């Protein structure tokens, strides 16, 4: 599949090593992606990486109104460092969207708990935005975010806006904090104790480091949320995005095609198999 040419329309620093980039097509229509899907983004001359759709493209947010596709990128390797350094106006390649996103329809009429760890908030952000745009369609909404330090909490301004809404319970916690931080300190799963939701009629969405999702799913199940209503976004090394190369295999699943979003009831067992 040949990458389409996109240009960086805007970029802003989210955390010390993370940037959010808004992309617009060099020509033709914008790319329409559902919350939870991902694209393969190509830094020309360097390489290609899978990036979750973090906004736009899916009919919500200002980027979408401008016809932009948004990704949040953490500079951890050669490609992501190149993407974070790509200035407005410069070109990148985009393939996709790929994969199955969050099953929003399942959450209609239900309480919703979103548990995000670090940059795991990126693929959950369009989901939350979609729910806020159609707030009456859902029950109580709790957005629980964990990060390493206060400086590493992504989308701080947007989180602050969510916190101001009476119909959203948005809470952030960090692993370590110095003077000046007045928020919570501790693991993100500890926030579940104060989250307001009816476990029997709750749909949960979680994304972040896999070990965090395992603990989050365990805590949700302990609260009484059924395993088939806990959805998590898994990652392995996505390469082709089409389910052909097998690089992202997890047991019987090819995460780029069958996922990245899965039910915990279907994949929970696989997460504790050491060989996978």
């Amino acid at each position, binding site marked *: 599949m040949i990458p389409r040419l996109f240009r960086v329309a805007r970029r802003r620093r989210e955390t010390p090593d993370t940037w959010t980039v808004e992309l617009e097509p060099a020509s033709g229509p914008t790319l329409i992606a559902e919350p939870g899907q991902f694209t393969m983004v190509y830094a020309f001359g360097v390489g290609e990486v899978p990036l979750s759709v973090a906004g736009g493209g899916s009919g919500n947010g200002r980027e979408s109104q401008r016809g932009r596709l948004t990704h949040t990128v953490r500079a951890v390797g050669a490609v*992501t460092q190149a993407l974070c350094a790509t200035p407005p106006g410069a070109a990148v390649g985009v393939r996709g969207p790929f994969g199955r996103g969050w099953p929003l329809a399942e959450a209609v009429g239900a309480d919703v708990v979103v548990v995000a760890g670090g940059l795991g908030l990126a693929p959950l952000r369009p989901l939350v935005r979609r729910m806020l745009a159609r707030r009456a369609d859902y029950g109580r909404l709790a957005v629980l975010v964990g990060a390493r330090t206060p400086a590493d909490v992504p989308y701080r301004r947007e989180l602050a806006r969510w916190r101001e809404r009476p119909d959203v319970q948005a809470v952030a916690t960090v692993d370590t904090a110095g003077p000046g931080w007045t928020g919570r300190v501790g693991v993100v799963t500890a926030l579940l104790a104060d989250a307001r939701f009816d476990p029997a009629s709750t749909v949960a969405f979680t994304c972040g480091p896999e070990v965090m999702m395992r603990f989050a799913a365990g805590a949700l199940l302990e609260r009484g949320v059924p395993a088939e209503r806990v959805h998590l976004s898994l990652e392995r090394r996505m390469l082709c995005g089409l389910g052909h190369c097998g690089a992202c295999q997890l047991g019987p699943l090819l995460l780029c095609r069958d996922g990245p979003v899965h039910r915990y009831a279907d994949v929970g067992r696989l997460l504790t198999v050491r060989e996978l």
Partner: protein
Amino acid sequence: MPSPDSALGAGPDAEPPELSASPVFADLDADRAALLAGCGRPVAFAANEMIFREGARAEAFYVIRRGTVAIETVVPGRGALTIETVGPGGVVGWSWLFPPYRLQFDARAVTAVRATALDGACLRGKCAGDPALGYELLSRLARVLIERLQATRVRLLDVYGPAGPAALAGADR
């Protein structure tokens, strides 16, 4: 020491100790709850007020009813670092359980806090006189301690750190 006459003005008669509101003491037999509550008194702390300080004698533990408490320690050159925060229903203070009964960390009210302070010597006395009560109390507190230990272990993994996965945003390492 707790300061029941703090700026919030919650004196001993302001609110009865409501231990059952905490998950730690939920479903506790009414007689035993009454026995434990006999060691308790309501306390209140204003935002930013110290609840206890490292090195002081551990005379009580606190069941938080409202507000948030930060467990802190001072690191030279870095100031007071928050190790953990505890919200409503949580328990703060373990050093009353065993000699030398010395507090290991600071506790500060992040927001206005209302809590039940349970006197350690009183509890130890009641538990010594009623081993079944002691077993019940220590079982419940051990559960909280295990949860805290497990949470601390997860944090030690530093899953959000540079070596951790990056949620479809850094597969090029």
